[in-house]
C-alpha cells in the first residue's frame, strides 16, 4: 500500500516534469510553424490589431502570432526582465523613454540592412516619427502611430451646465488666477447643493461632479502640456540633462496642484492617482467629471464609456506661452535575440504596412504612422459624430516629445511616486521638481 503511494508520487513527479519540459518546448517550432510573440500594452487597441494579424497569419501559414498584453505599468518591468533574461518577445512596441537604453544595450535589431534589402519605402512615414529612431545610420524601429493630448468632454455634462462645445474653444490659463480655463471648469463643477466653487457656501468635500479629471504616470497627459504652454522645457537639449526645476516648469506643476487643491475643479488625487485610480473614460463615464485631459489613443475607450455621441474632444487651453501639446509616437521593434529573425521581420513589415495601419485606423484605435492614412482615422471618427481633427492640428502646432535620455526609465518610475505626492498636497511643487531633477540626472552617466 505504502509502496504504491511512494511509487505513484515518483510517477507523478516524473510525469509532471515531463509535462513541464514539454510545455516549455512547444513554444518553439513544431511541424514547420513558427510561433512569434508580439508584446503590447494597450487593451483598447488589441481587438483591431488582433483581427489584422489573423489576416497576416492567413497570408503566412507557417507563422503563428501570439499577442502578449500587459498594462503600461507591468509592461516595462516585464519587457526589461525578459530582455535581461534573454527571452524577450520577438516583436514589441517600443517607446522613446526606453529606446535610448535599449539601443545602447544592443537588444534591438538594426532594421537598416533589411529595409535596404527589401527596398521598403520609409518615406511614407511621418519624418518627425521616423527620424527619432535612427542612431548612427542604424534604424531601430518603424513608426506604428502617433498621439497628442486633447480635452475630452461629456456632452451631457456640458449641456447640464448650459455650455456648448464652442465654449471650450480658445480657453486660456495663467499661473496667477487660472484664466478662462478655470472659470469654465468652475461652471462644470457642482457640489451636492448645486453650488459652484466660485459661489459662497460651496462645499469642496461634497462635490458631485468635477470640471476636469487628470491622470498621468509620467506627466504626458497632464502637467507636461501646461509646462509646454508655459514655456518650460523638460530637458536642456536632446540627450542632455533634466531641467524640471526651472521656474516655468514648477509653475506648471503648481497649476495642476492648484486645479485640485486651490480651485477645487479637478478630481482629487485620492481618486485618480495611479495605479489604483480608474481610467479617465470611466471617471467621465460615471459622471464624476465633466472633462478629462487624455491622449488620442483613448478615443475608443471614451466611445465605450460614453457611446452614441456622448463625448466630444476640444483643444487644450492656451497658456502664457501659447498653445501646445505633448506629441509622441511608438514604433514596432524586433528583439535582437529573436530565434526567428526572418519571420519577425515579416511580421514587422506587416505591422507597419499600409494595409495593417489602415485597418487599425478604420477601427479608430490610433492615429497611424503612415501620413497618408491620417484621413482614414479622422473619417472613421467623423462617421461616429466625433471631430478628432483637433489632435492633428495640435500635432502640427507647438509640440513637445518625451525627453531623449538613457535615464528616462528612472524618471518614469520615480515620477509616479513623487507627483502622486504633489497631487495629494504632501509635497510642494518646488521640492518635487528639485527631487525628480536631481534623481533623474544622477542616473545619467
Amino acid at each position: 500500500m505504502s509502496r504504491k503511494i511512494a511509487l505513484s508520487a515518483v510517477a507523478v513527479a516524473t510525469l509532471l516534469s515531463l509535462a513541464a519540459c514539454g510545455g516549455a518546448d512547444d513554444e518553439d517550432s513544431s511541424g514547420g510553424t513558427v510561433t512569434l510573440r508580439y508584446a503590447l500594452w494597450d487593451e483598447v487597441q488589441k481587438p483591431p490589431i488582433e483581427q489584422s494579424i489573423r489576416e497576416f497569419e492567413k497570408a503566412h501559414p507557417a507563422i503563428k502570432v501570439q499577442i502578449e498584453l500587459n498594462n503600461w505599468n507591468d509592461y516595462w518591468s516585464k519587457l526589461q526582465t525578459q530582455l535581461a533574461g534573454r527571452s524577450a518577445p520577438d516583436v514589441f512596441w517600443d517607446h522613446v523613454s526606453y529606446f535610448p537604453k535599449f539601443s545602447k544595450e544592443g537588444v534591438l535589431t538594426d532594421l537598416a540592412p533589411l529595409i535596404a534589402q527589401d527596398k521598403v519605402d520609409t518615406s511614407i512615414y511621418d519624418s518627425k516619427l521616423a527620424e527619432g529612431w535612427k542612431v548612427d545610420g542604424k534604424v531601430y524601429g518603424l513608426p506604428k502611430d502617433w498621439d497628442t493630448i486633447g480635452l475630452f468632454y461629456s456632452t451631457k455634462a456640458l449641456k447640464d451646465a448650459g455650455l456648448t462645445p464652442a465654449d471650450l474653444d480658445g480657453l486660456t490659463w495663467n499661473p496667477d488666477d487660472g484664466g478662462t480655463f478655470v472659470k469654465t471648469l468652475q461652471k462644470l463643477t457642482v457640489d451636492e447643493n448645486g453650488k459652484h466653487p466660485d459661489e459662497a457656501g460651496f462645499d469642496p468635500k461634497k462635490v458631485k461632479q468635477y470640471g476636469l479629471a487628470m491622470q498621468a504616470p509620467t506627466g504626458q497627459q497632464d502637467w507636461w502640456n501646461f509646462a509646454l504652454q508655459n514655456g518650460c522645457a523638460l530637458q536642456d537639449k536632446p540627450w542632455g540633462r533634466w531641467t524640471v526645476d526651472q521656474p516655468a516648469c514648477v509653475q506648471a506643476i503648481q497649476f495642476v496642484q492648484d486645479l485640485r487643491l486651490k480651485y477645487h475643479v479637478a478630481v482629487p488625487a485620492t481618486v485618480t492617482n495611479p495605479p489604483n485610480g480608474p481610467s479617465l473614460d470611466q471617471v467621465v463615464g460615471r459622471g464624476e467629471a465633466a472633462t478629462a485631459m487624455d491622449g488620442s489613443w483613448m478615443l475608443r475607450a471614451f466611445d465605450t464609456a460614453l457611446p452614441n455621441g456622448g463625448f466630444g474632444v476640444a483643444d487644450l487651453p492656451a497658456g502664457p506661452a501659447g498653445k501646445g501639446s505633448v506629441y509622441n509616437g511608438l514604433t514596432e521593434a524586433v528583439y535582437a535575440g529573436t530565434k526567428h529573425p526572418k519571420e519577425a521581420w515579416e511580421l514587422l513589415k506587416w505591422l507597419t504596412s499600409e494595409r495593417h495601419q489602415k485597418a487599425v485606423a478604420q477601427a479608430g484605435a490610433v492615429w497611424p504612422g503612415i501620413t497618408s492614412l491620417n484621413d482614414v482615422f479622422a473619417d472613421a471618427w467623423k462617421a461616429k459624430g466625433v471631430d478628432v481633427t483637433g489632435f492633428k492640428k495640435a500635432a502640427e502646432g507647438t509640440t513637445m516629445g518625451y525627453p531623449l535620455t538613457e535615464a528616462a526609465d528612472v524618471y518614469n518610475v520615480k515620477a509616479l511616486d513623487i507627483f502622486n505626492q504633489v497631487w495629494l498636497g504632501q509635497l510642494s511643487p518646488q521640492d518635487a521638481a528639485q527631487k525628480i531633477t536631481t534623481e533623474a540626472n544622477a542616473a545619467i552617466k
Partner: protein
Amino acid sequence: MKRVALYLALLAGAVVSVAPYLMTLNSAFKEPAQVLTTPAWEPAFPLTFDNFAQVWSEYDMAGFLLHSLVYAGAVTAGQVVFSTMAAYAFGRMSFPGRDALFWGYLATMMVPQIVTLVPLFLIMREFGLIDTYLGLILPTAFGTPYGIFLVRQYFRTIPRDLESAARIDGAGTLTVLVRVLLPLSRPILATLATITFITTWNTLLWPLIVTNGDATRVVTLGISALKGQYSSQYHLILAAAALALLPLIVIFLLFQRHIVRSIALTGLK
C-alpha cells in the same frame, strides 16, 4: 449569560473569517452593474455565470489555473519525495558532517526569498530556463529546509526497534524507508504535501521574475495582471479571484484535519 456573550463574540469572529469569501463569491455571480449598485451582502439575483465565462475563456483563467496546477503539482511531488529522502538521512542515519549540514539547512530557513532573487534569476538565465516550467519549479522542487525539518522531526518519533527488526530480516535502507517508515508517516506526508501545494499555488514573487510570457503564466500573475488592467471592473476581477481561491478551499476542506493538527504541531516544536 457570560457563555452567551462568549458564543456571540466567537460567532462574530467566525463571520469576519468567512465574510470576504462569501461576499466575493456572491458578487462574482452578479451582473456587472449590480456589483457596483447593490451591497455586497445582498444575494445575487438573477444569478449570472457570464463573469466566470468571460474570465475563463477570454482572459484565459483556464490557462492560468492549469499552469499553476503543473507548477504546484510538480513542486509538491518533488518536495514530498526528496524531503522524505533527506529527512531519513538526517533523522535516522549517522554520517560525518550530518549535524553541521542540518544546522546549515536550518539556518537558511530565515533567509528571505527576495535575498536570493537576483542570483537565482541569473542562474536560470545561464541554464536557459527563463520563461519555462523548469525554471519555475527547480528552486523549490528538491525540498526546502522547512519540509525536511518537518519530516525529520516526525521520523524521530518512530521507535527504532521497528527499523532494527526489518534490518535483521535483511532489509536495505530503501526498503526500510519505503516499507517501515512511510506507512507510519502518512499523516505528516499528507501535511507536507498540502502545505507545499498551497504555498506554491499562492506564490507570486518567483513566477513574477522568472516567467513573463503567457505560455507559463500562473494564476497569481494572471489575476494581478487582471487587476492592473481592469482595476475598477469588479465583476471580472472578483470572479477571477474566486476562481483562484476555489481549489484552495477544496483542498483545505479535504485536509483540514491534517492542516489544523500540523499547525498546532509546528508550534510545539
